[in-house]
């Protein structure tokens, strides 16, 4: 009987600590609340988006993009239309609380032939990541938003000297975040 009481007291104590941490917002600041992975057996890459669920506009709204080479060989990723080259096109679809898509305000660039410097080497079983500030090119203000990668065909090649580019789709599930 006493043991049960003690257990309940312990659980209650843990609950109090957690409630305190949650209400003061100590933990969620850099907490990744949602991670999505798209796995496709034929695709040697996995893409992942993450961002803190609570954001402050003044600090910029930074989203993290990670791409993993899940294959057994080193690969050359074409950086075009990936977050690794910054905003050269519309990378994300951001919707406000009403489901309305925000207007992309960055540039859209026409290029023709990828140059050697446009490729990024990613070793077998390793990953690369980068961060972008969404406030640079999307009219974000306080409120709730959802964000996903704009579906796009990306390309890679198996060896530096290969002429042929192989396509793959790098997609990620929708994340949500809130700006105070």
């Amino acid at each position: 009987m006493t043991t049960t009481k003690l257990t309940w007291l312990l659980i209650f104590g843990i609950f109090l600590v957690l409630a305190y941490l949650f209400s003061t917002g100590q933990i969620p600041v850099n907490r990744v609340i949602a991670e999505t992975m798209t796995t496709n057996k034929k695709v040697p890459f996995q893409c992942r988006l993450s961002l803190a669920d609570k954001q402050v506009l003044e600090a910029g709204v930074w989203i993290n993009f990670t791409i993993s080479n899940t294959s057994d060989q080193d690969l050359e990723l074409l950086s075009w239309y990936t977050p690794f080259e910054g905003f050269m096109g519309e990378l994300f679809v951001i919707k406000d609380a009403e489901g309305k898509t925000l207007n992309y305000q960055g540039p859209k660039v026409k290029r023709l032939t990828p140059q050697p410097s446009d490729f990024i080497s990613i070793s077998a079983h390793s990953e690369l990541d980068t961060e972008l500030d969404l406030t640079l090119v999307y009219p974000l203000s306080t409120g709730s938003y959802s964000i996903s990668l704009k579906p796009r065909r990306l390309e890679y090649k198996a060896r530096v000297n290969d002429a042929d580019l192989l396509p793959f789709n790098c997609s990620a599930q929708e994340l949500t975040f809130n700006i105070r």
Partner: protein
Amino acid sequence: MKYLSTLALSGLSLFALQVNAAQLDAVVDIQSSAAGNVSATLTITNNGQATEKILSWYTDLEEEKIFHVLRDGVEVEFMGPHYKRHAPTEKDFIKLKSGQSLSRSFELTSLYDMSEAGNYEISYDVSSLHLFSNDQPTTQDNGINKVQSANIERLASDASYLWLDGVQSKGLAKVSKKPGGGTECIDGTCFSGRCSNSEKNSIFSALDAADQMANDAVAYLNSHSASNTSARYETWFGEATNSRYNTAASNFDAINDAIDNESITFDCSCNQSYFAYVYPNQPYKVYLCRAFWSARETGTDSRAGTIIHELSHFNVVAGTDDVVYGQSGAKSLAISNPNQALNNADSHEYFAENTPYQN
């Protein structure tokens, strides 16, 4: 006698002020190209016995407005930078030994508005407090108050004369606007970012070709239908439905309307390897980059096609995206996802360029 010598002395000092550093001579040589560009070569020579100095800013068109350009007697606008500077230090001066000269060439039409036909008069003409030396202005007490004798130093060349045919648009006459701020407009087409005369001529020519392409695309879409497409439509937009076909038709109507009725601004400042870029929410400004200038006027990935591509991006036109790039990518997209093909800028460009030709 005392009076006379004072007069003579003051006369001498006045004379000295006006012929400051007469030892330096400036000569300007003007050359015009068939494409309409004008190159000015400035040569400054020290014809004196002693070493002379000149403030380097005044030998560089990228730093100061060093040429005086008149068209039929009226000064033309300078579109280069205006800097606010600190007082010069010794390292800002170029030293010229006796007999030594410096020579620099500048393309003028990208920095002066020389797009209108006329008789041009061009001279080098600069003035500054510190043109030839870093000496501080002397302060004199004339008994009432202190007067700073600020001696403006000047160096100028003789004028050169040149007739220019100017830049003309063909059959694209629209209402002219005067936006200012480094932007100038000719027959409703505007230029910013230092477009030279030869670049302006290329743009007009490409815009004319883009206009024909857009007219041709609209004519195709008006004379076919969703149930009656041909290889040209199917190659770039895939299988037609009424809804998709209507999207294609309204997209090209909007592109055609932008060319015919909107004031498009072309910016020549981009030095990247790209063809071009736009900010889709900022119609109708198109930034042209290096690949644009080396492309052919018509055909696949041409200058005219690039204009169609870029106009299609504007949200107020067709709001297209770069879903895939290149002909093979666009062809695959037409088969795999016709809806996305109608959202792809290159698909619109290739349909308009229609190269190789298809019915």
